[in-house]
């Protein structure tokens, strides 16, 4: 029964990890930009959900409708106004630039919200579902379902829509896409906007689950990194598989080796994958 409970915990946690990572993976895969602001976008999304619930009583799942366009615009603006200027430079330049922007954003959040931990407490609480001795908290199920729906939506956008095909085309061959008449700077901005929107939405959902503080952004970024490497860079299904894989390894690692080793285990796994399977579990298949 304990094994089943831990498996159940891992599946729910894995979907949240996927949600954390998918936007990061998209930006890295398409733009070759390691967006160090990703963690802070997630935290900012959590503050949006927390503020909307506290001040206006808007439930987090409704806040998704606000977060998605708001964060898309923020991301689009940052890419168009700042990142596009250095996009052709080596990856280290964009990394440093997003790192610098993250310092500004994170410190601004520290000033605005302080480092105090806050928690979005739903009233009444959603409670938990139980079957026998198995228990799953409903807020995690809600977050999981919305995470998977958002990830599916992103997948469909990339696969079915014209703009999605343009993003994939740019990712595969930028010069050829430009020759075909694709407006590359605008596609970059759209992809970055989508990545930011996914981060913001992830933050909104995670606000129900994790304590909120600007300090948490580093942990989110770390998870996004590991999930991307495990699942395969730039792949939407890869983020889901990577997230689930990471959560299962961590949960059962905690059972077998003790909870103090689960973080070490996930980063150990990162190193093993970087050496032996750098393309991740699902390979570098892109968004086709």
């Amino acid at each position, binding site marked *: 029964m304990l094994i089943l409970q831990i498996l159940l915990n891992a599946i729910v946690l894995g979907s949240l990890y996927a949600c954390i990572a998918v936007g990061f993976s998209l930006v890295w895969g398409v733009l070759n930009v390691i967006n160090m602001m990703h963690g802070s976008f997630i935290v900012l999304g959590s503050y949006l959900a927390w503020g909307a619930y506290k001040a206006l009583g808007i439930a987090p799942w409704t806040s998704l409708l606000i977060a998605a366009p708001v964060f898309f615009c923020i991301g689009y603006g940052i890419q168009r106004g700042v990142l596009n200027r250095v996009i052709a430079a080596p990856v280290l330049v964009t990394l440093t630039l997003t790192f610098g922007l993250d310092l500004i954003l994170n410190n601004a959040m520290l000033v605005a919200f302080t480092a105090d931990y806050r928690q979005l407490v739903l009233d009444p609480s959603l409670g938990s579902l139980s079957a026998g001795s198995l*228990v799953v908290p409903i807020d995690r199920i809600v977050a999981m379902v919305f995470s998977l729906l958002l990830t599916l939506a992103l997948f469909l956008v990339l696969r079915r829509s014209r703009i999605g095909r343009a993003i994939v085309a740019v990712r595969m061959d930028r010069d050829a896409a430009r020759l075909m008449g694709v407006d590359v700077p605008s596609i970059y901005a759209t992809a970055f906007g989508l990545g930011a929107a996914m981060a913001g939405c992830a933050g909104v959902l995670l606000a129900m689950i994790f304590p909120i503080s600007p300090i948490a952004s580093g942990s989110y970024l770390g998870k996004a990194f590991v999930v991307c490497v495990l699942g395969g860079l730039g792949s939407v299904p890869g983020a889901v598989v990577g997230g689930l894989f990471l959560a299962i390894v961590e949960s059962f690692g905690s059972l077998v080796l003790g909870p103090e080793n689960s973080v070490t285990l996930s980063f150990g796994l990162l190193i093993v994958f970087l050496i032996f399977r750098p393309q991740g579990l699902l390979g570098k298949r892109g968004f086709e």
Partner: protein
Amino acid sequence: MLGLSFRSHPHSARLLSMFACAVVSTLTVMTVQAQDVIRFGAPLPLTGPLAPEALKQQQGYNLWAEQVNKAGGIKVGDKKMKVEIVYADYQSNTPRAVQTAERLITQDKVNFLFSPFGSGAAKAASTVSEKYGVPTIASTASSAAVYDQGYKYLFGTFTPNDTLTTPLVKIVKQKAPEVKRVAILARNDLFPLAIAQEMDKAAKQNGFDVVFFEKYAINTMDHSSALSQIKAKSPQWIFVTGYINDLILIKKQMDDQKMQAPVVTMIAGPAYKEFVTATGKTSENISSAAWWHPAERYQGQDIFGSTENYTKLFRDKYKAEPDYAQASASVSGALFQMAIEKAGSLDRNKVRDELAKMNVQTFYGPVKFGPNGQINSLKPPVFQIQNGQPVVVYPAAIKQGEFRLGVK
């Protein structure tokens, strides 16, 4: 160019002498001022990961200094001297804390010293204050290892870690004899782990059965697996250590997994108001312990007078509730003040002797240092969240309510 113009100018000599006079008189003013001020050195990790803790220390010292100066200063013999706290940042880097302490003594010429933050840095820096014979009060060092060096000039205001866990174990044993199975989950970090180990020891000595004792890593984002394992052992007492973010998350996940137990203890989150705000009703009946709590009611001979007055002054200045870290910093200043006034001089040896034989009541509790310099008079309070408020349940002399069982 400047030298030439001086030489060629007929009034240059006079100008120069006027300038010299001005410099000398300024220096004299400065020395007079310096003589009227007692300087306390405070090496603190003002930047870096320990910065939030340093801020608390600073708030505590500043509040004390402000009160002293408002009252005209510290009475030294027949004159009153103002207080100045000289802060120096060691950037959360312990080896640098030692250098910083030395610099404060040798270059900034402080009269007395407060230790850097935490047991490790306080122990490291105590060597320097011993070398120069500077009385030093450590306001955040609880480990017995800090005080076992036979030093004469080091004093500390935190009792050893076991004074937090032993009373808890005794209360539970007395109030709930049916509670036998204890599960301990500890953050793998210096203080949280040390407290958990003390708990393990105290529980076993008192006949409890420790059915689970595991550590979790710093930066753990999810505790569901560890909590499922605890739940499977059906403990009656769940004892968790960590910092506030860990404990908020763990409590939330305990609710998610519908974990209930007669006793749930968490150290060191519930001492902070944010913990109760973030966990809401689910924090009811969670017990904890700390070296000091604003709910205590001590009448003191120190400048703050009483716990109530201290809490009020703190609230007025910072618009927040004080916790044990800030109170310990403030009381450290107040203890220096009492020792200096009793010694009637700034002589370091005399002040040291007054500290060593000190036996006073303060807003922080009774203060008396053991032969090793660590406080041995304090009974750290055990408290419990009842109706959303922390209520002291031990020691008997200041208790505000009875220990309750049942945490949902």
